[in-house]
């Protein structure tokens, strides 16, 4: 596009592709060590100012559909997938439009965000650690893929990530209820986010009771357990050997957001910025880190020997206009941190890391089964973070041999996810049906409407069953020259399906849910069927199910012990290309049942250490010695 060969040619120690959570953490660590880091972000960077944040809040407030990407302005040249891109068909099946091209039997129903801060802007902020069993699912339970490293290798980095993200939690409870190993006397930086009233009600009725997945199977005892959050809470005075912890406030406004105040809109945006976002890490970057936004990396460049030498990127000015200038930047190390799907896309476009034929394969998410109902008294939904507690008893164990394990999230945001509450409740009571073209029926108005809304919404609750999905080669991201975006870059083509073991997990989850609802004496309103809002509908063993995506895309540049069967090694280094790292959830060989961001952050920090060593080694002076002449014996 540009006349000169390398108009923007600059040299750095490290180029990081993507200013999301993993990229921001890598840049921080390496910048702190004095390395010159260039961060290239495909999206815009308005969110790190307070007016930008307020604009996103306003956009969210006025959005008709409150989905994870709704606060963030659309970007035509660096588009993001949106959960609204996928719709269900009346008789089952789905239709997809938008950025991702979908070719699977079932839709990949998750989004991500291409903007500075990345998907970490709209994440919920839950930071459970993975269970030690999750790292060895192949050898222990006979499915999926094993990690080349285990929980113990990652434990110190989990702690480092918990510091960087600012995690609030109860380590003793995590150890006792889930069996997670922590160093003796470890406490999280902040005390746990207090349980919601709903959590207390559920705990009173469920704790100590046992449920069965099916008649004759083993009993599992229920226990409501608080969830660790990357969300500001009361700092723990015993943290860090008694030095305590100082909560990190909002990016763009001093002295703001140093505690969670219980807004329930964590996903997609925390108004107070008590929730960690990568913008907080960026605010602490050293001067050695340079961020360039609106720079879409289009190709990774290598030397003839296969070593990474830089990237080619397209710098654009107007997010609505298909115009850009192509530039290159060079560095000793290139770190892809652009999200699992974008990292795979970049490797495929650059025709790199081809040896194992695993790039783009093993795409995983946490398919979510929702169940929802009304309690027999008000439980105060829409207050406090989206979730404060869960039921952890189904995350591992013998059941895992035959069906996917799952983690049960207690949702504090009513039926907003399963049924679009409270907007949908208002519409229903106003007499509006699903068909917007049909005449409106008789509705309630004024005080009667408010009272009826209060009666219904105040009793809403939902459970989110987050299923582990195992690595399967058939679930994959590819590219197709026929499908390109406005800048001419290929759009990701996704082929996705759920295995029978995931579906068996959902059937078990539904059976568990039925018993929980019985114990709660709750009115079950769960209903699964095909329709426009149920693209994730399928039938399994004669029953209907609908799943949602969790936005936890993973596995597409899978980590392994051998260059023949995996894309990256345990340091997230591409086996085939010295100096090229692919970091993020794409490296994960299995995802367990924990929300993956904390594990991703721990991996990124671990890789930063390796990158630092690699850069240091590259600069180590060679000592030239005179070769001694062989001793001459007389």
């Amino acid at each position, binding site marked *: 596009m540009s006349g000169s060969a390398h108009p923007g040619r600059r040299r750095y120690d490290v180029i990081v592709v993507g200013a999301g959570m993993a990229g921001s953490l890598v840049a921080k660590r390496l910048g702190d060590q004095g390395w010159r880091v260039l961060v290239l972000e495909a999206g815009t960077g308005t969110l790190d100012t307070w007016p930008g944040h307020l604009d996103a809040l306003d956009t969210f407030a006025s959005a008709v559909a409150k989905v994870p990407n709704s606060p963030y302005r659309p970007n035509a040249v660096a588009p993001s997938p949106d959960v609204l891109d996928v719709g269900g068909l009346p008789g089952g099946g789905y239709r997809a439009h938008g950025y991702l091209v979908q070719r699977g039997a079932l839709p990949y129903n998750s989004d991500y965000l291409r903007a500075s801060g990345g998907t970490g802007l709209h994440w919920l902020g839950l930071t459970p650690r993975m269970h030690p069993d999750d790292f060895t699912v192949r050898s222990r339970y006979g499915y999926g893929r094993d990690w080349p490293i285990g929980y113990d290798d990652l434990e110190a980095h989990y702690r480092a990530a918990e510091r960087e993200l600012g995690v609030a939690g109860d380590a003793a409870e995590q150890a006792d209820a889930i069996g997670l190993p922590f160093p003796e006397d470890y406490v999280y930086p902040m005390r746990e986010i207090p349980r919601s*009233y709903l959590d207390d009600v559920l705990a009173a009725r469920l704790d100590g009771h046992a449920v069965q997945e099916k008649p004759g199977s083993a009993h599992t005892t229920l226990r409501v357990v608080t969830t660790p959050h990357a969300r500001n809470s009361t*700092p723990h*005075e015993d943290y860090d050997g008694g030095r305590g912890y*100082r*909560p990190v406030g909002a990016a763009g406004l*001093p*002295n*703001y957001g*140093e505690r969670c*105040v219980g807004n329930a809109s964590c996903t997609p945006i925390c108004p107070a910025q008590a929730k960690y976002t990568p913008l907080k890490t960026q605010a602490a970057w050293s001067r050695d880190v340079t961020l360039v936004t609106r720079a879409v990396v289009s190709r990774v460049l290598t030397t003839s020997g296969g070593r990474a030498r830089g990237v080619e990127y397209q710098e654009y000015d107007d997010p609505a206009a298909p115009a850009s200038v192509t530039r290159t930047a060079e560095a000793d190390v290139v770190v892809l941190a652009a999200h699992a799907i974008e990292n795979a896309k970049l490797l495929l476009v650059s025709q790199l890391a081809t040896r194992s034929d695993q790039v783009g394969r093993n795409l995983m998410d946490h398919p979510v089964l929702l169940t929802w109902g009304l309690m027999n008294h008000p439980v105060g939904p829409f207050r406090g973070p989206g979730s404060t507690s869960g039921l952890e008893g189904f995350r591992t164990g013998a059941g895992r041999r035959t069906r996917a394990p799952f983690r049960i999230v207690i949702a504090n945001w009513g039926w907003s996810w399963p049924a679009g509450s409270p907007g949908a409740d208002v519409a229903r009571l106003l007499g509006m049906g699903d068909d917007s073209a049909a005449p409106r029926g008789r509705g309630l108005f004024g005080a009667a409407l408010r009272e009826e809304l209060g009666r219904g919404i105040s009793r809403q609750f939902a459970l989110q069953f987050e299923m582990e999905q195992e690595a399967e080669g058939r679930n994959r991201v590819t590219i197709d020259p026929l499908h390109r975006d406005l800048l001419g870059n290929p759009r990701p083509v996704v082929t996705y399906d759920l295995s029978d073991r995931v579906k068996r997990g959902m059937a078990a989850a539904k059976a568990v849910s039925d018993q929980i609802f019985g114990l709660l004496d709750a009115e079950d309103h769960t209903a699964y069927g095909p329709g426009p809002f149920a693209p994730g509908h399928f039938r399994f063993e004669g029953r209907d199910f609908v799943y949602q995506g969790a936005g936890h895309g993973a596995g597409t540049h899978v980590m392994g012990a051998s260059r023949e069967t995996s894309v990256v090694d345990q340091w997230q280094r591409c086996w085939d290309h010295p100096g090229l790292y692919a970091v993020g959830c794409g490296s994960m060989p299995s995802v367990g049942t924990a929300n993956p961001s904390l594990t991703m952050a721990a991996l990124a920090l671990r890789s930063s250490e390796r990158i630092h060593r690699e850069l240091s080694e590259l600069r180590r002076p060679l000592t030239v010695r005179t070769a001694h002449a062989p001793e001459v014996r007389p």
Partner: protein
Amino acid sequence: MTATGPLTGQTDPARHTDISAALAVVEEPPFRVPRDRAELHLFLQAALTLEHLTIPPYLTAMYTLPPGTNRPAHYAVRAVVLEEMLHMTLVANLLNATGGTPLVAHSRFVTGYPARLPFSRDKVPVALRHFGTKALDTFLYIERPEYVAEPPGHPSVADDDGWTSIGQFYNTIREGVIRLSRKLGEAELFHGDPARQVGPKDFYNSGGEVFAVTDLASALKALRVITEQGEGAAGGIHDTDDRLFGEVREVAHYFRFNEIRQERSYGPHDTPRSGPTGPAMDVAWQDTYPIDPEAKVAHYPPGSAVRRAADHFNEVYARLLVVLERGYTGDPAVLGAAVPVMLELRDLAEALYRNPHPDPAKRALGLHAAATYEITDRHFTLARDRLSEAPGATALPG
């Protein structure tokens, strides 16, 4: 040191002529350096009352901004309010550290408005005004860095001068703390129960940090935070949050208000004398709910929705003070329960200020209904009796 800001004197109190009522007078301690522990407690209680005195006027300016308007000003005023709350809490820590008992939930603690600014030479009315130039002029007067007279007893100060500035009052407390520490011994002066000290885990640190006061050094640091966050440090425009807390350095209160008043931000090299020369600040003076600066609940017709809302606001404000007092005089963890109460106040204010004034004559002037902060002992009794079933009570430690 003569911090003679170019604006000193600009806010001529004589311009506040729209106030007709007599100004409420806040009791001032005797004009001398506190001589014993009991007198120090009297001074510190007066400081607590003084720190609180500014909060209702600042909240009024904030709450008269229709939601979403004047955002830069909104966040600036909000940040100052938070720091006044921090100052209140630090003064409470000082009182507790020296064996005193903070008094908060009492009708004597909440002055009537309009009040006369205490410790000031001039008769400056402090009224509950909507966001506007008059409110800002008052705020500038309250926070202004000015030549600070030495404490009473100093050769340069005559015995009958009386208090001339808030800075002088705080310098006098400082002098008293130092003298008493010398006289009684540091350990003896700071013999208060350490369990009463509010620390960072109890307070939503926002703008500086709450810290325990346990000795002379922490006591002097607390007094330094209080004066420097308001007036700036050593003749500059910034506070010392960077040096004291490792935080971002901020423009001190006086200069933050001046940014709004001048519709322009301070640049990095500005001084009090240069005034703000940075980027323009987006201030829309017309985007406000104008209110009667002398509004009383009694002006609203009995039984009307506005009357009920104004009454309810005062009840909830009383509850906030009851929660604060319990936090300052018992378990500091109770302060966590103040947060839902403050959010409730915000929502009540939003519902109240948007109503036109019920009086047709005042409505014709474009005036809106307002919160009056008339907090009586009846409100406190009610708030204490109903605390356990009030919204937010679940946040109280069990």
